[in-house]
């Protein structure tokens, strides 16, 4: 039985090789000790089997041995003790728990011994948690969470389809009656929104009041926070007028919800006893609704139309429902109920949804970078920790215990990060919301608060990062074996692979940062272009005040206009006022939106008009164009005493109607059945909705006409100097001239424009902040990695300097390695950005994702950040004393 390989049969030789490979399953130190014996024994076994029965039995035997060695090896690695469980006295069984206490304390000590590392790791993870949680809370509220009513999925809006194909939400009560008990809905609730002027406070205030059916609260499945809800008798005619208040209004007027009960809500023309206050966050049907007053459907129907919410019954099948509804629609003799449609009650603007997802993406990137940095930090400590762990393993500490201690450290880090992160998130969220466009908080029926799920998710992520990367040194340390770790050399192999991993992480961070920076840069460019758009009017000197003239005091248009004229006269006489006028709103966002147009001139139908056209138009006073600086291009503006059918067109509309020749004096109508309108003049186009023009560029202006009072009158003042300085004087004058008229809003033109661009500003601010944070984190991460690399290579660098390399070249070497990482990251980032280009286009304004200026700036920034991060380590490398480093090796 000699061990001479040549004398072995071929099959045994092959098996031997297989067995030798299988030996790798056994952990290193054990393997080295035993390999020789094991191979010998294996040979002996196989030879004997071969001698006894030939090749086949020996192969079979050999394979069994290979399998056994594999299993034994794995079990060793998993920490199983071949000796057996052994008996454990009671004190040993209790010890693990006491051990936990000591382990926790030593984990804490281990962290406090490295305060810089611990602080930075905690802050890094915390910033990721905070950003992720805050943004996700917003996203969740807006996009994901359902309405805060019972069974929101069954809540629908009943819309009727009119002959022209449009969807209308308003119903006449007699039209609605047949639907109530027809077995189409399990419950129905109708309402109408009206404006009332609230008095009894320091100033009159216009509030939106919901006239609702008494069953509304039950219908929605909500209860008041204080007081009681409505009963059916409350809605009858002649009942005592009662009201429910919105939580914010109750608090503003009465202090606490309970204090409001039994007091009175005083509006012009009515006085309601407050019987209850709704919980905070209840805004039905809109965020602006401040009070609810009960009305039976019959009463509602007598004075106007209603909007309808209903509950779709789950027990009835869809086709049956459709049939019943269709029958009802067919039975209606009028042509304003051609068909019917159910819309889900919650409805989110797709544009809003889209860019909320942008937010989500940006925050997600930040979280990733934060976790990557934390991982890097932990890995940076790895080499050191490995050594420490190996020493303790050599001294006899159980492997499980060591791993557990590592785990505890990671858990402590994650716990601290979670605490700090939640606090940060709580601070971040209100700031986010304050910047947010109106859309965010008005389209949701919920208040946006910190989402527990978001917090939980972010913390889990941080935990996973900490644990995952924290376990690495512990696992590696206990495998390495004391001898090697204590051997003095810095474990070159593990350092190299660790370094590559960390470098890879950094390149990834740079890539992600690049994407964010690119996004921010593009949004900045987009915003700059928005600001530069010529709106067609001069807002820089304008002060505009929205008056909510109450119908109760001024019951017809004439009295309203008289009041307004009086005010405007006094404004004109005021110092610093160059011009004053009034109208129904001013751009951006004014007047009415007309749709369903079929434009006709005297020559016939106008060709080339988009059937989907939406036309903004408004009522204006004669000096309106002057006050707003809108140039009159043809004919004249409106004059006092103008006939009702006069019209001033924007130039694009005039062009569209009469492409060859003047428009002044010509006639047209909006639809074949509409009255003829006479054009008296043409003015320059304005961007009626602001720089981002959703409706095309046509608009028109008409004088105030008719008897019906208008719901809004906007005073327009052009200041000679700074409008902001003039604003208080304007407000005081209006208050003095009309103390019983609420001023709904007063602002300078600049403020109005800023508000119009609020959404874009918010996007920019947010992505910008996230990008900067990301850049900061990535820079820090880069700094960490390069420092690590330098400390690993001090030996090599020392040698270089000893053989004549200048400090400058050594520094250049270090910076070079950093720049290489950055280059990899930039390439990766550009690839990512290229994949996202189509999405980016949807949120940008007149700027391409590949804009060369922005791209260059961002790439330059990435390299600049890298340079800054590498500076300190490079300097440190340059100052190395070759003699010292060589001695240490």
């Amino acid at each position: 039985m000699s061990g001479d390989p040549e004398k072995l049969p071929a099959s045994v030789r092959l098996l031997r090789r297989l067995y030798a490979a299988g030996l790798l399953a056994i952990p290193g130190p054990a393997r080295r000790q035993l390999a020789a014996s094991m191979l010998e024994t294996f040979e002996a076994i196989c030879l004997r089997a071969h001698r006894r029965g030939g090749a086949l039995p020996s192969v079979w035997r050999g394979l069994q041995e290979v399998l056994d060695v594999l299993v034994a090896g794995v079990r060793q690695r998993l920490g199983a003790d071949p000796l057996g469980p052994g008996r454990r006295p009671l004190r040993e069984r209790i010890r693990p728990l006491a051990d936990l206490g000591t382990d926790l304390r030593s984990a804490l000590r281990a962290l406090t011994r490295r305060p810089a590392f611990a602080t930075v790791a905690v802050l890094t993870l915390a910033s990721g948690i905070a950003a992720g949680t805050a943004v996700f809370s917003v996203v969740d509220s807006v996009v994901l969470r359902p309405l805060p009513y019972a069974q929101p999925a069954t809540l629908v809006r009943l819309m009727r389809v009119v002959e022209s194909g449009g969807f209308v939400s308003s119903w006449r009560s007699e039209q609605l009656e047949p639907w109530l008990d027809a077995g189409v809905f399990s419950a129905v609730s109708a309402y109408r929104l009206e404006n009332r002027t609230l008095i009894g406070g320091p100033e009159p205030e216009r509030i939106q009041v919901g006239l609702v059916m008494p069953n509304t609260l039950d219908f929605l499945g909500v209860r008041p926070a204080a007081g009681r809800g409505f009963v059916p008798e409350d809605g009858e005619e002649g009942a005592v007028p009662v009201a429910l208040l919105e939580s914010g209004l109750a608090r503003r007027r009465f202090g606490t919800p309970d204090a409001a009960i039994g007091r009175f809500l005083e509006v012009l023309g009515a006085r309601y006893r407050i019987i209850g206050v709704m919980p905070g966050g209840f805004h039905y049907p809109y965020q602006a609704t401040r009070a609810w007053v009960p009305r039976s459907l019959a009463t509602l129907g007598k004075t106007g139309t209603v909007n309808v919410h209903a509950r779709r019954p789950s027990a009835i099948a869809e086709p049956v429902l459709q049939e019943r509804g269709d029958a009802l629609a067919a039975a209606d003799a009028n042509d304003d109920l051609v068909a019917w449609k159910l819309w889900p009650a919650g409805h989110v603007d797709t544009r809003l949804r889209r860019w909320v997802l942008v937010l989500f993406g940006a925050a997600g990137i930040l979280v990733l970078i934060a976790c990557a940095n934390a991982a890097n930090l932990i890995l940076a400590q790895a080499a050191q920790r490995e050594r420490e762990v190996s020493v303790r393993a050599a001294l006899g500490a159980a492997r499980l215990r060591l791993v557990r201690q590592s785990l505890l450290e990671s858990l402590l880090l994650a716990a601290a990060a979670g605490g700090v992160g939640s606090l940060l998130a709580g601070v971040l969220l209100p700031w986010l919301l304050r910047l947010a466009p109106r859309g965010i908080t008005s389209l949701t029926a919920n208040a946006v608060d910190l989402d527990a799920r978001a917090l939980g998710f972010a913390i889990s992520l941080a935990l996973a990062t900490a644990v995952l990367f924290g376990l690495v040194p512990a696992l590696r340390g206990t495998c390495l074996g004391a001898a090697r770790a204590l051997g003095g050399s810095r474990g070159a192999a593990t350092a190299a692979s660790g370094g590559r991993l960390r470098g890879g992480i950094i390149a990834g961070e740079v890539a992600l940062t690049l994407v964010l920076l690119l996004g921010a840069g593009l949004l900045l460019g987009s915003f700059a272009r928005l600001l530069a758009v010529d709106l067609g009017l001069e807002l820089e000197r304008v002060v505009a005040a929205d008056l909510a003239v109450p119908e109760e005091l001024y019951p017809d248009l004439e009295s309203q206009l008289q009041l307004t004229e009086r005010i405007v006269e006094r404004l004109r006489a005021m110092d610093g006022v160059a011009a004053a006028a009034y109208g129904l709103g001013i751009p951006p966002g004014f007047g009415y939106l007309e749709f369903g147009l079929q434009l006709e001139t005297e020559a016939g139908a106008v060709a080339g008009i988009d059937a989907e056209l939406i036309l903004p138009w408004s009522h204006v006073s004669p000096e309106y164009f002057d006050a707003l600086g809108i140039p009159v291009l043809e004919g004249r503006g409106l004059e006092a005493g103008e006939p009702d059918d006069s019209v001033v067109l924007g130039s694009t509309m005039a062009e569209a109607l009469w492409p060859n020749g003047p428009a002044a004096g010509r006639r047209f109508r909006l639809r074949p059945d509409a009255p003829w309108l006479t054009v008296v003049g043409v003015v320059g186009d304005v961007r009626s909705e602001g720089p981002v023009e959703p409706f095309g560029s046509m608009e028109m202006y008409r004088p105030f006409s008719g008897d019906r009072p208008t719901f809004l009158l906007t005073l327009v003042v052009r200041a000679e100097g700074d409008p902001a300085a003039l604003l208080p004087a304007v407000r005081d004058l209006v208050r003095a001239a009309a103390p019983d008229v609420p001023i709904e809003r007063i602002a300078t033109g600049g403020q109005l424009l800023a508000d119009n661009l609020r959404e874009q500003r918010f996007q920019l601010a947010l992505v910008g902040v996230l990008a900067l944070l990301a850049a900061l984190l990535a820079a820090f991460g880069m700094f960490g990695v390069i420092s690590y690399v330098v400390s690993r290579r001090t030996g090599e660098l020392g040698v270089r300097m000893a053989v004549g390399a200048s400090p400058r070249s050594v520094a250049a070497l270090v910076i070079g390695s950093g720049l290489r990482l950055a280059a990899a990251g930039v390439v990766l980032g550009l690839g990512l950005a290229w994949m996202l280009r189509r999405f980016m286009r949807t949120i940008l304004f007149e700027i391409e994702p590949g804009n060369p200026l922005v791209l260059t700036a961002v790439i330059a920034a990435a390299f600049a950040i890298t340079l800054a991060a590498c500076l300190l380590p490079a300097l440190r490398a340059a100052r190395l004393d070759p003699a010292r480093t060589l001695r240490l090796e």
Partner: protein
Amino acid sequence: MSTVDPEDLLPLSEPVYHILMALSDRPRHGYAILQEVEERTGGVVRLRTGTLYTAVKRLLERGLIEETAEAPPHIERDDERRRYYLLTRLGRAVLAGEARRLELMVRLARAKRVLVGRS
């Protein structure tokens, strides 16, 4: 090495028991241990090299067996590179303890008529 109470190591796993048993009468090398166990148990217990040597390593660590490079005088014709293992005093004590434990178990089984008759 701190003093170890043999009782603390009980019960032994089956492979370890048989390895110690194989070494109880004389020092052996790895292959011989495998053979001995197979023969003595009539082929019922078959140790493989993986199990054997990982157990051997652990036994060495715990001081239940020792390694010796010298071939004992009565072994002939064997490769001088072979490592021989022999039982230490501790190992012997542990083995005896396990055997006693097993005997106790068998006596209990007999008393309760689970095992009938003498083998």
